[in-house]
């Protein structure tokens, strides 16, 4: 287990994006130091809360929040 610096910027590993993007998987925001995907209210499954790996909203979130996490959401598209 790595006890990482809490200020470390989270990045989506390229190899993950390469594998899950073609499958239609999406990402959603997860609260810092938590597993709860309902950031900013309920409904992580709502389309407006589901993003591609390159989505600016997601990258901004990862850069700003520093300690945030990300989720791989398998949605109804596949």
């Amino acid at each position, binding site marked *: *287990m790595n006890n990482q610096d809490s200020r470390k910027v*989270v990045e*989506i590993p390229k190899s993950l994006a390469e594998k899950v993007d073609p499958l239609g998987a999406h990402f959603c925001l997860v609260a810092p130091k938590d597993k709860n995907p309902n950031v900013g209210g309920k409904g992580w499954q709502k389309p407006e809360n589901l993003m591609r790996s390159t989505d600016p909203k997601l990258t901004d979130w990862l850069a700003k929040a520093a300690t945030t996490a990300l*989720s791989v959401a398998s949605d*109804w*598209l*596949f």
Partner: protein
Amino acid sequence: MVILDADIPEIKRLIEEKLPSTFTVESPGSQGRHAYYLCGLEKPIRLRDKEGENVGDIQGTGKMCVGPGSIHPNGGVYEIVADVPLAQVTTQQLIEALKPYVVPEREIQRVEETARREKRETDIKPDILQVVPLTGLHKHGDEYYGPHPVHGSQHGKNGKNFWVNPAKNCWHCFRHDTGGGPLLWLAVEEGIINCSEAGPRALRGEVFKRVLEKAVERGYIDAKQVNIQKYTRTGTPIGNYWLKKKHKKVFLVDEDNKPVLSCNLDSVDGPRFKKKLRELTGLEEAEVNRATTSFSFAVQSIRKSHGHMEKNEEAEKEEPKFSEDVEANITVEVERVLEAEKQLEMLKPHLDNVVVGEESNKQAIFVLLTSGKYAKPEMKQMILLKGTAAGGKSTLSRELTRGYKTKNVGRFTAHALDYADLEGSEVLVLKELGAMDKEDTEKRGLSTLKFLSSDDRGYTVEMPVRDEETGRFKNTQYKIPAITIISTTTRLTLDPQFERRTWLFNVDETVEQTKKIAFWKAQNEKQKTQKLLGLRQYTDYEFSKEVLKRFVEKLEPINVIIPFPETLTEILGYNILRVRGDLDKVYNFLKFYGLFNKKRLQQLNENVYVLTPEICVEAIELIVEPLTNMLSQMDERAKAILEALKKVSDVTQRKTADGETVEVETKYCLKGSEITKKVRDRITVEVDKSERTVRNFFNFLSNTPFISSDGKKPITYTLLVDVETIEQKLSGILEKLKTSNLLIPEMEKEAQKLLNSLLENKTLREGYNFVKKNVEHDVEQHIESEIINPYRREMISNRQSSLNQASLAETSSEDWKNKKLPIIQRDKPKESWILKREGNKITAKDGNVLFVCPLCATHGKQLFFNSQSDLDLHIQGLHYGYPIKKGGQ
């Protein structure tokens, strides 16, 4: 894509040993692993250890999982530990690999059904989240898990032996395999019952009363709205009174439990008692009748259940107890059959051991009975065995239904139809149907039953019920849920409505069959003796019976596509099919037959298989006889009567114009022949049946264009066509069915065309140039601009995959069945997204508009487009334009 979350080292080991290597992430929390697979998982799979603790799960569509690079609440990072491509696996592979830990689907279904039942039967609906204390539970997706709030977990606060599913309003204890709805939880939490007792029938009598009182106390339900006495009082409610049984008397008691009326148990259905009930309760006749019927039925069921239990216990005692090595032999044999490419062929020796002769009949019936395993109502089949008394019908029905959850009904009565619980049964075994075609119900009494109609939800049947006032019978309609029915009859003709819906099988009543049975009985007797002397451990019959039973128990339905419907209709004959239902029956049979040849079918995705022409021809060969009977409305005995009619002739002496006397033979099989009572009597002798049977047959034929009748007594029939014409029609059908193998190339051609069109719905066909040219540009643009439009993304998804997939249009006809076909993906938008549908146009709640292809929809596929012009292009390219309507020609 699915993700297997393994929380313990044992599961991690099983993944490494039994599943292909795949992209894997390690969680910094419990050193658990997330293994990513490509799999068409339909429902999540839960994993638990021997103590009932949750040790992982497999989640798929609609779920989320924390991905690599994320930071755990403890500060650790989710690391990729195996950076390899995602491995493709099947659900079965996953279940097999993790078998010791998989929570059986039937257990989850039982818990959910208990919750549904609680809601249905009590009509009291507290919310599960209102009742279960959530403190100490963690949220996992839409569910909650944690240590059991009453008996706790071995792992203390970190335990995971208790789950709550708010969507299904149920809870589930993994330690005791129990669970149900909110009231059942209340019973456990209040200590009224133990957690281990929380099963489907736990909420009864005094327990239920106490639970309701607690629910009122806690404010979950309003005391004013719930009449606790209504739910907990024993007896049958009738207005503001109750009917109660005490010894051999029946009492009507008021709300204070004081008796106000009584009668003997046998008189409860009598007109005098009912009249008094009407006067006292002030209820209508129908309501009183319903209450007394319900009361009588309850009394009968209690009696029956006692008798039934005794019978079952006896049967259990009679069941041979196999030794361990015999058990192992049976298991190996069942596995061998399940693994075989041609399962029915492997089962044939076993079918021979339990049913003598009846070669194709027993196989076809065995295949048709699998419809009992399918949940879809439209798959349910009705099977009717026709033959004379003691002809072996009941044996066939009894031996072939082993392994299914059967409901045996001697005959339908009004009571039975009102209260028989058919919903939990897979097959309804109906003994001797009776005179379903008779209108003179007064003479026939309660066994008379008439099928009026059927739809996907079940069958409507009509039943004569005696009117207490007039003493006459009147017809009442009942609804039976859709269920696979197997029944027998000695009648030659039945209600045509019923015949249309059934598979007709004629049992073999030949002398050869009798000889076979005699020989088989002798063999079985010999083996029994050997067993008694310790020379063998079991008889062939016992062994095969057990193998068939266990095989049936292990059968799991699959979806089979028939890719050559048009050629199939050609084989069956457009003009002969009377109702569309006939074709549906054949389609369904082919699908069931496919289940026995699963390994030879082409698999499209997880649970969808494609039928091959060879398997189709095999299946048709098996049902040639019942199909011929079905399509021509004739059965074997009817054929015998026609044959006898050909043989009957009279020789009369006539004088010619020259004054010579010559002998003239009069035949009765020619057009215009009159079939009088005398002729019928001779046929009766010829076919060895009763005159009534023969008359019934001609009566039946007089409804067809073959025969007319004068309606007098005794009736005389006139042949409108000669017998040979009728027979030719029969043999024509037979010939067509028997040579169905000649149409294999046609089937292959049609199959390839259909499959290609299905696949191209997801990819893009070659001629679809306009879109193809712009595909790459489109993809990027849409990713940028329309990411939140789910429908748009789907189109992108389709287009992306089309870039990587070669068109299958060039696939040769020889190759189609061998080629590994790509997975057909689902592309239907969620119902919850849809605001309204207008023809092909679908408007989403967020204002987006979609167009669905009406022509693809006829193939059971849905393909969506963003504009009408896109749809037009698709139709021009793929379907070669809109079809011309017949009316417009």
